[in-house]
Structures are given as structure tokens and as C-alpha cells.
């Protein structure tokens, strides 16, 4: 615990668990229970009953509780500053030593890189949001891919879990160079793109490596989460195949779409299109049809993800700046958001804009300089 960490002092008695009492086998309770045939270490309850298979620790000793007096979310660990950082470089090696197959190592590495890249873009430029614009089936744009001859449902279905990383790639590129995003999800071109991206990523890596240590810790965390996400998606895929798909046969595609989007942060940018048959069409449309109602759903998730990102990015920063994000919602009317960590920029740019406006307005200027016209 560093000096700056929150103090958490608590005075404890000599025997906070009162083991004195629990060790005392002469107590009245002990006596009565033993008289009725109980042995220390036994469960209470009828002997040899079928439902005993469900008995847990809680049936043998009282339930232990942890005093929680903060608002740390479920699963979050308080960073005490003693976490190892900078282990990313060794992940490959460590994974190999742990006997992971080359394939998984490769995917993990890719995921890590994707994340790093997306984080970089996120931090540097923010992300552009897109709006769902239907499916290009043949040469017509339709609302759902079902109508077409091809059955992309199955395709996207099987791909959904795996393709998360790929989708992420596509989307990472989109904000910086929308032309890239145009790329179809055709396998051939995908490979192409990957190559180009890998090249790029190397450059970026160099950049990002120059970044502070704290950040790399963050990234590491994110990487882990990426893996988790992949897991999550697999899980979801299964779940949907059992319960939901049966119920929502018709909406199958939608469900999958949303699954693909929601847990994976990066995906959101491209409007979570599982097969990006017409990314270009979308980017085009996106700017025109901002008030399309369909936007809502995707938008929502994007923002959510964005906020999360921002949060995670800001985790090291002061909570006040995190809060200020709240008051400046991402949907400021532009699909290109203000760069993350931006509340200051935002305020400044507003200020500048106001100034500019004032300068342009002669009446206002007169007022400022107190010139009577």
C-alpha cells in the first residue's frame, strides 16, 4: 500500500472470530447436539438423505462475509499499485511455455494487437459512429439479408464468435481511413487488409510502446478482457443457439448481430455489422441519415462501449474528468466525436467557437468594446 492509498484502519479485538467460544466443547449447545447423536464435523439433518448432495460449506459452518464499503463493481480489483506491468512482450513466450497451441497463441496475439490499436485510435481521435443501412443483397439494399439467395445467417452465425477480432480490425480502420473500411468481408480481401494492417500496426506499436507504463498496464487489462470477450461471445453463441434462436427464429440475424456488437467494444464502430457487405454504403449514409431511427440501437451500444472505454482509459485519471464525460454526451451531433479525455478540449473548443462568433458579429464586438454606434 502506497502512502497515497486510502487508509483503512480498523481496530480488532483479541479474538475477532470468537474462536474461544467455538473451541469450547463443553457448552450447552454442544452437549445437547452430541446427546442427540451429532459428531463434530457432521452436518445436521437427516442421515443418508438423497438431497444431501446439494449440501455445501454453508451447511457446515456459518457463511463468511466480506465487508464491502465502497462502490467497486463486481469483479473489479482495487489497484494497489502492486500489479505487474509490461508483461505483454512475454505473453507469447509464456503462452508457449504453458503449452498453448500455436493457433491460439496467434489469435491471442492478434487480439492484443487489435486492442492496442483500437485503444490508440480511440485515445487519439475518438471514433466515428455509423448507422445501420440495410444489407446489400445482389444489387439491392434490403433491410435484412434473409431475402437474398445467399443465406448469410448461417455464415455470420458460425463466424460470429471467431470473427470478433476481424470485425474489430475492420472497424478500427474505419475512422481513420474510411476507404479502408469499404473492404468487403470477402475472404480474399480480408487477408489483404490484414496484411496492410499488420504493417500499420507495427508502426503504431512503436508509437504506443513509447507510451507510459501505466497505460500499458491498462492495455494489458484490456487484452485480457478481449479474450474474455471472445469467450463471452462463444458463450453467447451457444446460449442463443439453445434458447433464443428457438424463440426468435425470424430475428435470428438481428440477435446475432447484436451479440456480435455488444460485448465486443470495437465492433460497435461499424454499426456492428457482422458481414460488412456494404460498409461503404453505410459510411455514406451514415452522414446523411443521422436521424434514422435504426440508429438508436447501435448507437446506444456504441456509446456505452465508448463510455466504458473512456472510463477505462481514464481510470488512472481523476474521477472528475470521468464525470465531465457524462455531461458532454458523445452524441453531440457529429459522428466524429471529440477526442477522448477531451472534456478540456471540448470546453476550449466551445470557448474558441464562441470567440470566433463574437468576432464575426460586429454588434457583439461593439458591445464588448463598449462602442456606441
Amino acid at each position, binding site marked *: 500500500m502506497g502512502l497515497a492509498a486510502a487508509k483503512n484502519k480498523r481496530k480488532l479485538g483479541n479474538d475477532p472470530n470468537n474462536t474461544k467460544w467455538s473451541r469450547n466443547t463443553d457448552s*450447552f449447545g454442544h452437549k445437547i447436539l452430541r446427546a442427540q447423536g451429532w459428531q463434530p464435523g457432521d452436518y445436521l439433518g437427516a442421515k443418508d438423505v438423497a438431497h444431501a448432495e446439494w449440501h455445501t460449506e*454453508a451447511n457446515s459452518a456459518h457463511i463468511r462475509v466480506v465487508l464491502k464499503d465502497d462502490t467497486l463493481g463486481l469483479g473489479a480489483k482495487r489497484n494497489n499499485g502492486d500489479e505487474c506491468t509490461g508483461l505483454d512482450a512475454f505473453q507469447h513466450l509464456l503462452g508457449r511455455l504453458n503449452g498453448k497451441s500455436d493457433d491460439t497463441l496467434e489469435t491471442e496475439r492478434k487480439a492484443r494487437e487489435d486492442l492496442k490499436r483500437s485503444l490508440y485510435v480511440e485515445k487519439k481521435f475518438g471514433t466515428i459512429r455509423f448507422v445501420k443501412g440495410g444489407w446489400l443483397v445482389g444489387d439491392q439494399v434490403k433491410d435484412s439479408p434473409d431475402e437474398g439467395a445467399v443465406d448469410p445467417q448461417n455464415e455470420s452465425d458460425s463466424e460470429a464468435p471467431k470473427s470478433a477480432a476481424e470485425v474489430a480490425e475492420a472497424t478500427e480502420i474505419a475512422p481513420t481511413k474510411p476507404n479502408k473500411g469499404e473492404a468487403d468481408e470477402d475472404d480474399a480481401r480480408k487477408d489483404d487488409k490484414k496484411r496492410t494492417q499488420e504493417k500499420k500496426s507495427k508502426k503504431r506499436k512503436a508509437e504506443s510502446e513509447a507510451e507510459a507504463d501505466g497505460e500499458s498496464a491498462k492495455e494489458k487489462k484490456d487484452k485480457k478482457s478481449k479474450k474474455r470477450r471472445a469467450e463471452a461471445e462463444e458463450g453467447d453463441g451457444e446460449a442463443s443457439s439453445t434458447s433464443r434462436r428457438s424463440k426468435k427464429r425470424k430475428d435470428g440475424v438481428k440477435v446475432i448481430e447484436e451479440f456480435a456488437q455488444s460485448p465486443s467494444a470495437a465492433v460497435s464502430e461499424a454499426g456492428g455489422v457482422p458481414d460488412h457487405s456494404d460498409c461503404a454504403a453505410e459510411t455514406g449514409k451514415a452522414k446523411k441519415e443521422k436521424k434514422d431511427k435504426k440508429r438508436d440501437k447501435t448507437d446506444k451500444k456504441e456509446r456505452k462501449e465508448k*463510455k466504458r472505454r473512456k472510463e477505462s482509459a481514464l481510470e488512472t485519471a481523476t474521477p472528475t474528468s470521468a464525470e465531465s464525460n457524462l455531461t458532454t454526451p458523445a452524441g453531440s451531433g457529429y459522428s466524429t466525436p471529440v477526442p477522448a479525455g477531451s472534456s478540456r478540449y471540448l470546453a476550449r473548443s466551445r470557448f474558441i467557437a464562441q470567440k470566433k462568433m463574437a468576432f464575426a458579429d460586429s454588434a457583439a464586438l461593439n458591445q464588448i468594446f463598449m462602442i456606441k454606434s
Partner: protein
Amino acid sequence: MAFKRSSAEREDTQDSKRQKTNGDGSSTMDPKQNPYLAHQYEDDQNGFKSPLDEFERHKTTAVQAAKAEDSDLNPWTGLPHSQQYFKILKTRRDLPVNKQRQEFLDMYHSTQILVFVGETGSGKTTQIPQYVLYDELPHLTGKLIACTQPRRVAAMSVAQRVADELDVKLGEEVGYSIRFENKTGPKTLLKYMTDGQLLREAMHDHEMSRYGCIILDEAHERTLATDILMALLKQIAERRKDLKIIVMSATLDAQKFQTYFYNAPLLAVPGRTHPVEIFYTPEPERDYVEAAVRTVLQIHASEPEGDILLFLTGEEEIEDACRRISLEVDDMIRESDAGPMAVYPLYGTLPPHQQQRIFDKAPEPFRKGGRPGRKCIVATNIAETSLTIDGIVYVVDPGFSKQKIYNPRTRVESLLVSPISKASAQQRAGRAGRTRPGKCFRLYTEKAFKKELIEQTYPEILRSNLANTVLELKKLGVEDLVHFDLMDPPAPETMMRALEELNYLACLDDDGELTSLGSLASEFPLDPALAVMLISSPEFYCSNEILSITALLSVPQIWVRPNNARKRADEMKQQFAHPDGDHLTLLNAYHAYKGAEQAGEDVKKWCHDHFLSFRHLSSADNVRAQLKRIMETHGIELVSTPFQNKEYYINIRRALLAGFFMQVAMRESSNSKVYKTVKDDQLVMIHPGTVVTSPYDWVVYNEFVLTTKQYVRTVTNIRPEWLLEIAPNYYDLETFEKGEIKSALTRVAEKIRRRQAMKGGK
């Protein structure tokens, strides 16, 4: 007995009816002519022939029953059905359970114990008891049908609903019975009751002989009383083969129930639920309240119409979140044309009229065709199962709830924020799919869901102090506590502690048998310590006052301390403050309340002005009347010391010790704020809500809680001499560990001895 007799008479009438149809009406003295029995034959006077007459018990079919339900005259009362009845009947026929009525009856006929699973919205709570009613025909046997509910409100409202559905008056054919209210009559055939109430009845009727069928509803909630009832019914079912038992659960993991009841057959009815999409966060949240607020705002900003349900842990957190959400939404409306949003808090201690507001319709859009309005309910986990709010489409679940847990070693009851269970998380998500497909946003990762959450919420029996339960079990005739066949046996230490406490309270003798005091104490629906205090209060000439204090301690806090007027509330409380402690302060407030009532003041306003909860005070009044009745039936005197007597408060303080001598703490050292509990040696502080300002050396406390620190709450100053005098058994200095408390008590004992010697010398 009364029931058996009346049923015999009823059978007679049916015989006579049959005779009449045979055209042999003028036989001997027709009991119908007897004016004294006229009220029993109203049916016949209308010339009413109930379709039920053709029913054969345990051989009815769904078609038969449906026909009886469709008839113009009510088969149970003989009166014509109202218009409303047929309207309700139509909706009842649409319920998912209705499709499986025949299947249910077949199964019901074939088995003694049946496990029934129906998700929320299947209609099981209202329909199954009625199906049983049409098959069990309790008017012929005189054996009632009981349906238990974990909550009083549920028992009352469901009984009302079923009375409407059957087109009868509540309290006649259909009634309910809860702790402080019994709305049943001699005609009652179907009785909704709290599980605790059925347990109390069983204390006097070990065989539950009044009942022909017992339905345990909401068994998945695993309340203490339901758990004990299950174990008890399992035993009774062996002895009474005519008793039918239905265990109803809302969750699909009914396997445990089946196994427990000797592999009882299972009937499952799908609920009327829509799919719910589940979203996790990719990363754990740093601050779940913050994240929850943001998620709600995002939903409002971008999701289509539909209400939001957000689960948080406690009153303060909820009020805070409500405030923040409202503020942010106002901003959003001002800046970006968002729809209106109504934010309602919901927690147990909220007054009912405010709880009702959650059922209000979502606000209208600001203008026609504008963005739709929605409501957002910020609730504790009472919205998880107990309350059904329609229109919820989005659920936000941070994954925490406040849970009560008892530690038998330190005897602390803690109410702490802890992670929910997987089952609970699924229940919460399910709330989103009541009206249409919904979404559930979980503010934790899927990994956390899988790894950090336990499978099932711990049943209450594993989380409670069992002193009261053990006393009840003893009274129920359960001798062997070790091998009592509970579904989830409690930890042995918890059981030991309960036995030990009861032994010190003299409710159990040294062989573990119920004493007469214990038997008397079990008559009171109170914790044993409170009951013993009440029973022994006449010895201290203050049973009236102790009765009031007991009632005040069995209702929620009567002090109201709104966030925006804390200071004024504290000042008001100071008006009632008694320097010797909180128990006496409570009593003062109660006396002032009664005084205001007698002076004909507007008590509601008076309470509001004095920052007291009218609701809790009046319910304390109600509890007091109830307890008084029990005291009177058992011949416990109601006495008071005259108020002018200077012993008035001293007597009360001494009487407190008669029940709470095990809950005493001594100050660790002078000018310290830390106290040490007697025997358990736990370090505690006095809860800041106390009126006690001067630091007393010895205090008796009502409860020991663990919130952010270990606190004792509701404390009163006492003198150590009293301890040795009132509870010599517990304060047997031989049994004390060496330490400050022992030496302090030894000094006191020494002093007493010297004083006595002086008196003797005179």
C-alpha cells in the same frame, strides 16, 4: 371440531336434497324446517342445485370444472354470477396454467406430494388453489385448503384477487390469515396465509388436521418458515396419507425439491415471458453506482420505448441514484430533446403510497409525436421476485444486494452489500421480459458472472439466528433437532448458539427440554429474548411500559430522518430523548404520540412535524394490542410503577435486562468510545443514531450490527449490580475468562457483599 360438525350437517342437506328430487320430500322432520338452522340452507331455499353435487372428490376433470365455472349461478354460493366474473373468467382461461389443468389434475390424483414449477406470469398462485378447490371439494370434507405466501402483502392481495375470481366475498369462502389479521370465517374453504402463520397454527395442531391440502407457494424463496414447513409436512405426510401437498416454485431448478420429497412428480408450466437479451460489460466497473446511472441515461437517450428497472442495494444509494438520474435527465431534456422520464425509488421502508407510484403510467411525451416518455424504477431486490411491474423492458443489474447474515460466533447480524447469486441474476434479467422482448445490462463481465457469483442465494435458514426457530421446533414437538430433516440443515454452531441462548433464557432446561417459560414464550410471535423480557416484566412493576417497548422494537425504526432535514429531525428527537438511553427515548416518543392522539390532534400531522413515522407508530400500536391480548389470555399482569415514583425508569431499565442480559457491553476504558461485549469480547461502538451522549460504563443493547463498523444499536445505560442480581446464571463469575470485564464484575460483587454484610451487622 367445529368444522367437522358443520360438514356433517352439510352432507345431511345433500341427502335431503336427493330425497326431495325423489319426490319423497315429506318424510320425517326435515331439518330445513328448523328455523335455527335456516342459515345453512339458504342454497336450498333458492332451489339451487350446485353443479358441484355431481363431482366426485379426487375424480374430477378439467371439463367438469370448466362447466361448473361457466354456469350462471356460482357453484359455491348459489348466487348468480356477476358481469365482472365472466370478464375475469375470460382472462383466466388465457393463462398458461389453464392449458394444463387436466394434466395437473391427473397428476394431483396420482400422488400425495407434487412439485409444481411455473414461471412468473403463469398464473400459478391464483389458479392452482382454485383447481384444487374444485377437486378437493372442501365443503364436503370440512378440510380446508391452505396456500402459503412468504409475504403478508402477497397473502392479502392474492386472496382478494381469488375472491374476485370466484365471485365470492373476501373473508367468506376465500380468506386470508396473517400475523396481525385474520380474515376468515366459518364458511372459508380456501385460505391464503403467510408461511409463518401456518407454522404458528401447527404449534397447536401438530397434524395440521384442519387441512386437506397444503400448497406452499414461492418455495424457491426458501424463507425460514417455508423451510421448516417443508420438513414438517414431509413428516406429517407419512402419518396422514390423506393430506396432499403441492410445492410451487418459480425457478426451474426444482430438482432439489423433487429429490427432497422422495422424488415427487414434477409439473412444469411455461410462463408468459419473452426472451431477454443479456449484455455484459467487457471490463469490470470501477464504480457500479456511477456505471448504473450512466447506463440508465444511455438507455434513455438511445433505446426505444420501454421502462427501466435498476437494482441497487439500499435506501441511501437508491435515493442518491434517483436524484442524479433526474438531474441528468433534466439536462438531457434541455439540451437534446430527450423524452420525459419519471424516476421512482422503491425499497421496503418506503411508505406504501410512494411504493404505489411505481405502478403509475410512464409520462406522456412532451408533445404529440415527440420522443416517448418512460419511467425508471430504482429498487432493492424486492423488485426481484415479490413485485411484478409490467412494462419493464430494460433491466440494469450491478450484481449486488444487501443480505442479512448471522454469525453465531460473534452473535452479529450483518446487513452487508454482497454479490448476488446466479439464480438471482437470472431472476432480475427475467424482469425485463414481462411485456415484450427486453434487455438486461449487467454491469459486470461474463467471467465475473461465471466465477464470482454463487449458484443459489443462501436460504434464510442458513443466514439467521435460530433461537426463535429452535423454540418453535420444540413447540412443534420436534425432539431430535440433530436429525430433523431440513432441506438445508443449518451450521451446527448456529444451532448450538441458539440452544445456548434459550438455555440461558430458561426456555430450555439443562436436558434441552422445553420449560413452561419456553412454552409460554413461544406463544408470542417475538424473539425469545423479547418474549422473556415481556413475560418477566410484571416482576419489575412495569409490564405496560415493557409491552410498549417490545412493540416499538418489533417494528421498523420510528424515527424519520430525511436527508434534507437531518438537523431538524435530530433536534426533534432530542425533545423525546431520555438521558439514560434509547429504549426510554422510544417509550417517551410513544407516550407523546398517544398523548397527541388522545388530545384529538391530527396524529399524522403531529408525526410529520415531529419527524416520526406515523405508519410505524400505528403499526406498533397494533402490535401492542395484539401482544396485550396474548398476555391477557395467559394471565400476565399489566402493571405500572407510578410515574412520579423515582423508580419508574429504573424499573424499566432493570426489566430490559431480564431478556437482554446476554446483550451487554462494557466500556473498554474510561475516555474510550469502544465497548466490549460481555463473554464474546467483541469490540463495538455505539451506533451514531443514539441519544446517549454521556459515556456510560455499562450498556444493554438491542442489536449488534455490522455495517461499516461493528455497532450496537438502541442502547440503554444499566448498572452492573443488576446483572449479577437479575441473571446470576449468565453472570456466574466462575465461567468468565480473565479480563477487564471479569475484574470489574468481581469488584461489583465484592461491593454487594460488603453492603449486605453491613446491613446484616446492623
